[in-house]
């Protein structure tokens, strides 16, 4: 079965004023959609056709000859995950087991926030900032372009898109403002907690 574009888990204007309807229209309707279309075109008629998204990603990761498939497949996965990492009225702090794990592995929630902000701000060019489970330990990482934790044996718990298209219409060059807003107003900690619980 061909890969499909998942619907956004909220209305296009649900994240305003932090992320505009216009940004989500392009980001979901054009960018994410184009990755899906490109991926289907690239795998059509190959042994990758019909494979799950995760299997596709892991089977071409590190293969320079399959960079096109990897980039598009990974970007399909990254964006589907990113939408779920946000919600209207999000932000604040996690509770329960996730909060305890963050305190145990980073020292404090504030220490995690600092690391995550730094990862997002210092990912030069296009890419992503992540909270991952690496073995039994929570870590903050950053990846360039389409790269993702799955290609490094890590489990993604939270991501933030820092490609310029994610924030340029709303924040232009002010990436740090987008990052702060993402953490304070948008993060869906319930989704992150569920990812940890399922790990």
């Amino acid at each position, binding site marked *: 079965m061909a890969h499909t574009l998942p619907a956004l888990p909220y209305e296009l204007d649900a994240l305003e004023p932090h992320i505009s309807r216009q940004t989500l229209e392009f980001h979901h309707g*054009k960018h994410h959609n184009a990755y899906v279309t490109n991926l289907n075109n690239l795998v059509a008629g190959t042994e990758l056709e019909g494979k799950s998204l995760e299997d596709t990603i892991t089977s071409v990761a590190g293969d320079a000859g399959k960079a096109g498939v990897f980039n598009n497949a990974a970007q399909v996965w990254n964006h589907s995950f990113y939408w779920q990492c946000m919600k209207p009225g999000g932000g604040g702090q996690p509770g329960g087991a996730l909060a305890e794990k963050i305190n145990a592995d980073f020292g404090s929630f504030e220490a995690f926030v600092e690391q995550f902000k730094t990862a997002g701000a210092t990912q*030069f060019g296009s890419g992503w900032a992540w909270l991952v489970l690496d073995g039994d330990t929570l870590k903050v990482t950053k990846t360039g372009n*389409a790269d993702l934790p799955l290609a490094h044996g890590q489990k993604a718990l939270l991501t933030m898109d820092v490609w*310029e298209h994610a924030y*340029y*219409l709303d924040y*232009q*060059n002010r990436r740090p403002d987008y990052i702060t807003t993402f953490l304070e107003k948008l993060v869906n900690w319930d989704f992150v907690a569920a990812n940890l619980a399922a790990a």
Partner: protein
Amino acid sequence: MSFLIPALRRLLMLGWLVLLLVAAAPAQAAFELPPLPYPFDALEPVIDARTMEIHHDRHHAGYVAQLNAALSERDDLAGLSLEQLLARARRLPDAMRNNAGGYWNHSQFWSAMAPAGDGGAPSEELEAAIDAAFGSAQGLQERFSQAAAARFGSGWAWLILRPDGTLAVTSTANQDNPLMNLPGIERGTPLLGLDVWEHAYYLSYQNRRADYITAWWSLVNWDQVNQRYAEALSPASAGQPTLSPRTPGAEP
């Protein structure tokens, strides 16, 4: 010192502090942001004035400021020209490589553009080299546009003069460029470079990078490209156009 009244003593200490700070200040002369060679709205409608203002006054200015900040901690690199820094990119820390590249790339970008209709045409010599390498001007445009469109993520497309004297189209990621001694980069003298970071076109074109690339050709300043080509070929030049000299008088 005990005979000094406390106020005078503080003054003396302050003087020492100032001396220490001056002595610790970098000998490095600061790189400077070149002014745009035309008003913000000169390239409309292909590139809107707001994009030009943010791109030059924020992005480009940011690269210059961060490069100077990074250099202020590296006395061993003091006195090197921008091109000399780029030529040793492999040994530079990421922050310096990225900001030096961002500084150089944008400087060449502004001067490689002119208001539509003002950019002239390729010289006879350049035209002959283009025909030899790409078949025709159309051939160059297709190859270059393809390289710009295919650059995944952020980066640049380039027309370069190779060391062997032929022209080639290349593409680099992020703020890397053909002057850098990095693995995977075909080195040469950049004659024309196109910014395909999303910040270069997102306010006007959003996801339509291909439309931006097509429209951008009407802005190419061929007079500038001709000059770069002539300088790169001239034995008198170092082979690389110096686009962003340091503060006058600061060169060793």
